[in-house]
């Protein structure tokens, strides 16, 4: 069937393209099968304005002392560890759905950050980092002189 394919891609059907598509589909399916839960921990939301950025992350059960936040230019790095519950002898685990271990996530922010003015808080298992934009990075308005 050539004509429906033409309609779908808007170009001539090619077996190579079809193979590529199959490969992509397979990769997607396999990667989902092997990790029923996402391995990205912690999940992060980013809120932005012209002046600063707020990064929030869900870090339940992570001791704020085990959480490191580093900022360089416009790159934010969150590293830390969530300790697994240690089982004493004689204790049996029935369910293990929560992830534990070390994590590291890196984000590129839309602008350079004044690393001295970053403040972070961790409440109720949610980390909130506020990163103000560096003064040098702020856009400057250039006045146009009119010539007479």
């Amino acid at each position, binding site marked *: 069937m050539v004509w429906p394919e033409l309609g779908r891609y808007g170009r001539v059907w090619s077996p190579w393209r079809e193979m590529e598509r199959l490969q992509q589909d397979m990769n997607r399916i396999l990667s989902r099968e092997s990790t029923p839960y996402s391995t990205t921990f912690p999940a992060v*939301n980013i809120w932005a304005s012209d002046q600063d950025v707020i990064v929030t992350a869900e870090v339940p*059960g992570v001791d704020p002392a085990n959480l490191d936040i580093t900022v360089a230019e416009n790159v934010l790095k969150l590293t830390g560890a969530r300790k697994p*519950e240690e089982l004493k002898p004689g204790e049996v685990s*029935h369910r293990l759905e929560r*992830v534990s271990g070390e994590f590291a996530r890196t984000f590129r922010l839309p602008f350079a950050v004044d690393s001295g003015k970053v403040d972070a808080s961790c409440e109720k*298992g*949610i980390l909130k980092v506020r990163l103000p934009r560096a003064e040098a990075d702020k856009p400057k308005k250039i006045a146009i002189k009119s010539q007479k």
Partner: protein
Amino acid sequence: MAEKEMQKREASSPVETERTTARKVFIPRVDICETKDAIVLLADMPGVDEKSIDITLEKSVLTLLGRVEPETYEGYRSAYVEYEAGDYERAFTLSDEIDRDRIEASVKNGVLRLTLPKAEPVKLRKINVKSA
């Protein structure tokens, strides 16, 4: 569905009852382990504190309900989203071996910890037989 699986699993239908708010409901991830004299349940509920959590025990069904207000920041736009805020709800059926009057709960760093002590084994009662 997006390429990346979301961190939280959304409940396919809120546990048996319908809700009056339009907020999303998530199933908290849970670890359960059994010690010599109790069953310990840990549930990840980021955004929940001791005031916004309800634990109810009705007959043998233990229901956890955590309420989370969605976060909004005035003057900011959402630039990148990996998780959504919503309530947490999950129910467990307890066996008879749990002592229901001594269940303890605490919450720290967004993790709920429930201790369900096992009941004392029923003592044998000997019935004396009188001679008639």
